[in-house]
């Protein structure tokens, strides 16, 4: 399987990458390549120009910064999975990265590449929504920051503009007393999420009430979404089994569930509810230490 011919460009700075992006018609950014290259090999994508971000300086690394962890967009899934900073501060991000694809994918695929590609069955979008990731995009006119609720627009469509590069991902740290968990039901062949749910909760130590909650659902629909109904049913409540169970029942609301060989709409909506419950139960356990 050989891709159609293309020109390869390897800029070393964001500025140069943006210049190329502005100048070249029919170009695609390469950020790891585990989605783009298979599509090119099948000739489903035939871009004339590939702008490889792999040699651009300053796009990798994970560091703590003012109540957040900042991750360079070209940081590989493996680096995210094994990051000491993330494991200490926001372990669910490392946990999510650890179930992406297989080691080969994680060694080359990047967090920014995946979040910009926005595959509807990718894992990290659920966690991005649950925790409230922020996306720093750089274009000819400078930088802007997009909140996760504005990021996923549709099937493989994000707020990233044609002539922009996603450079940085800011992951806010959650307060003490928080716990989060990502759980997925993997496709038996591809290991993408048939359904994946990330749940994050903060529990007030004194009252035992839920003071903050985030639930993201991926896989079932054409894009990852926030399970607003679930969140609303939990916020301010005491998180007992019945409350969680009742809240999880709302997990498929707002998901445009798609039927395919792996299940009917009914089945996948059911899985959303099952995995919401399981992720919430695990998140609560972690929050309670």
């Amino acid at each position: 399987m050989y891709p159609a011919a293309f020109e390869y460009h390897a800029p070393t700075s964001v500025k140069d990458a943006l210049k190329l992006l502005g100048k070249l018609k029919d170009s695609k950014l390469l950020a790891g390549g585990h989605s783009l290259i298979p599509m090119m090999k099948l000739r489903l994508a035939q871009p004339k120009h590939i702008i490889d971000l792999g040699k651009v300086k300053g796009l990798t690394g994970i560091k703590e910064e003012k109540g957040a962890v900042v991750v360079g967009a070209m940081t590989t899934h493996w680096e995210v999975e094994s990051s000491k900073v993330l494991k200490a501060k926001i372990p669910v991000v490392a946990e999510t990265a650890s179930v992406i694809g297989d080691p080969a994918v994680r060694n080359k695929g990047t967090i920014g590449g995946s979040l910009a590609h926005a595959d509807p069955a990718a894992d990290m979008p659920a966690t991005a929504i649950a925790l409230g990731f922020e996306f720093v995009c750089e274009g000819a006119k400078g930088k802007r920051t997009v909140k996760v609720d504005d990021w996923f627009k549709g099937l493989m469509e994000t707020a990233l503009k044609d002539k922009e590069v996603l450079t940085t991902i800011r992951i806010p740290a959650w307060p003490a007393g928080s716990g989060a968990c990502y759980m997925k039901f993997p496709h038996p062949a591809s290991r993408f999420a048939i359904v994946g749910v990330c749940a994050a909760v903060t529990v007030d130590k004194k009252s035992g009430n839920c003071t903050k909650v985030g639930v993201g659902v991926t896989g079932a629909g054409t894009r990852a979404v926030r399970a607003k109904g679930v969140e609303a049913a939990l916020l301010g409540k005491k998180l007992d089994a019945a409350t969680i169970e009742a809240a999880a029942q709302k997990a498929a609301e707002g998901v445009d569930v798609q039927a395919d060989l792996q299940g009917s709409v009914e089945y996948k909506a059911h899985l959303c509810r099952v995995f919401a419950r399981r992720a919430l139960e695990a998140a609560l356990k972690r929050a309670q230490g």
Partner: protein
Amino acid sequence: MATVERVLGKSIKRREDPRFITGRGTYVDDVRLPGTTVAAFVRSPHAHARIKKIDTAAALKHPGVVAIFTGKDMAGVNSLPCGWLLPGLKVPPHMPLAADAARCVGDPVAIVIAETQSAAQDAADKVKVTWEVLRAVSATDQATAKGAPQIHEVAPSNEAFTWQIGDAAAVDAAFRGAARVVKKKIVNQRLVANPMEPRACLARYDQATGDLTLWVTSQNPHVHRLLMAAFVLGIPEHKVRVIAPDVGGGFGSKIFLYNEETICSWATKQIKRPVRWTSTRREAFQTDAHGRDHVTEAEMGFDAHGKIVGLRVKTIANMGAYLSTFAPAVPTYLYATLLNGVYTIPAIHAHVTGVFTNTTPVDAYRGAGRPEAAYLLERMVDAGAAALKLDPADIRKKNFIPKFDNGFQTQVALNYDSGNYAAAFDKLLAMVDYRKFRHEQEAARKQGRLLGIGFSTYIEACSIAPSKVVGSLGAQAGLYESGKVRVHPTGGVTVYTGSHSHGQGHETTFSQLVADELGVPMESVEIVHGDTGAIPFGMGTYGSRSGAVGGTAILMSLQKIKEKGKKIAAHLLEASPSDIEYTNGQFQVKGFPGKSVPFGQVALTAYVPHNYPEGLEPGLEETSFYDPSNFCFPFGAHACVVEIDRDTGQVKVLRYLAVDDVGNVMNPMIVDGMVHGGIAQGVGQALCEGAVYDDGQLVTGSMMDYALPKADMLPMYETDRTVTPTPVNPLGVKGAGETGTIAATPAVMNAVVDALAPLGVDHIETMPLTASRVWSVMKSAKR
């Protein structure tokens, strides 16, 4: 004198593995010839479409293109042959390049030959085919339906054949007297073989000599040569050499003669340059022969005590768009003749209809017919147990054919060699600790957990096959094997075998055999296979035949070598040949251990015959052809324990246990490996694999969609063996290549049904048991 250690029957590490695991194997795609061109095929994107026009003008102008040919250019080339003819079989033409119409997605219509792979592929994209899209049919049970589109002129109702075996009247009578007749629909879904190495070929026509050399991913290079030379291209066989070097797996799919190697072999002569083609994985999904694909109505009658009184089977078998090389044999002689299983069944009748559809051709895939038979029987026996409220272990014990050592005549033509089915099953039950499991299951069920156990007791026909028998059944070939042993002047031994190793480890097992017979170290033995230029005519490897048939051919030549060696030694020792015995690599006078000559000296004498027996030919080289007198019938008993997640329907395999009886074992580690891999494939069919067509389009056409079993789906296997040597061949080996694939699928299905029994489930028609399917079954269950 040191005793040479015996190696046959020991777990000798595979000699071929160092080169494979260090990337130093030589596969077809590794062969490099100067001036080689690369081919890409233009294929039909439609399941069924008439070819109105093929415009190659733009493609021909593409830089680097050498030539483009369509079906019209290949006048004088014949249809790919069908090698097994059933009475009344409709054999439609299967032209290497379709010229009139495409009948399945992936049907090749043009070959583009260029200087590079990318040029060939780019230019192939520029070939414009004008299609008239026709209605397509892909579902097995819809092929002959009224109004289904006709696929071939010769088969008006899309029926390729109808065929039957057994005694219909006897079954009718048995059912009249039966206490209970259980009837089930059983679908054995379509599978894709997916060997690790995709198919590939490299064809070179030598203008100077007129010789054609074809390197091809083949399990049987001689069969490839014969079919291509004699039937398709019309080239004399002695001008064709087929080489199948290292081949990375086949599972049956590399037995057959395919369009691509035929076209490349023809094209190299046209362009006078070598032509190479290597399949992409996507092409492999679309064009490698698929397996299984049966829709069956089965009825099994029982008396009040659970004894089987009769079996009636009606099967529709999907042949796909064309008849692949051995396709008609698979759902008939390799399937229905196994429907006696390991049970005493007084009356059996099977009726099989083979149908054409707009899908990839179906042919032998690991097990080939035998897994379908075992799956059917094991489901029906369990369904019978459920209906009669009997324990699935007890119903099996009640029906096993009692132990026999030399022959059991079945109701469906075959005569089993030797068997002790209850022994294997008893061993399995002990390994499982069956009664204990049932207690655990009871406790788990009280907690609402869905825990289940499934059994599968199977038989298969290996050592394929007695030529006279298969000839009378429609085979257009004999199924013997060749083995040539050449002893070199310095005592080294080269063995030329018609068997072909594509994962089986012949270089090790055959070396073990030679080392033991001749008393020489394995290191001085070389096994050569896969080259028609070097090896006597042979039939290749499939149907678990290499040890039993190929091994015996080698053994026969080794015995001839020893006999000749005795004559030479007798001369040197001034004794009579009848007084010479061969032991530990020494020819010695019986009773006089000091009076001996080593093997090496005899070998040297054979080639430097200065002091030599009168009238004896020099040289030490013998060839044998072995045609087995019967099939061999390995058997065994497997068990699977599963738990089902009530929330998701996900099946988790907790335990997998296997007791196989493959007769004598040449290398236990290699047999274990075959059993392990086979079980994975069988579990794969039960739980996740399945080729799915939607309106003629293969929607599971990539590794992202088609779920092969993965290591984390499988537990550590618990395996053991019983040993019942076959009387058929002197090695006593029965064959081990397919047992796991045959046994595992029903064991898993039976376990899932057992787990769901508290919900009132006693049967699931269709595989694979994906989480979503199991969830649907649970949802619509009675309780």
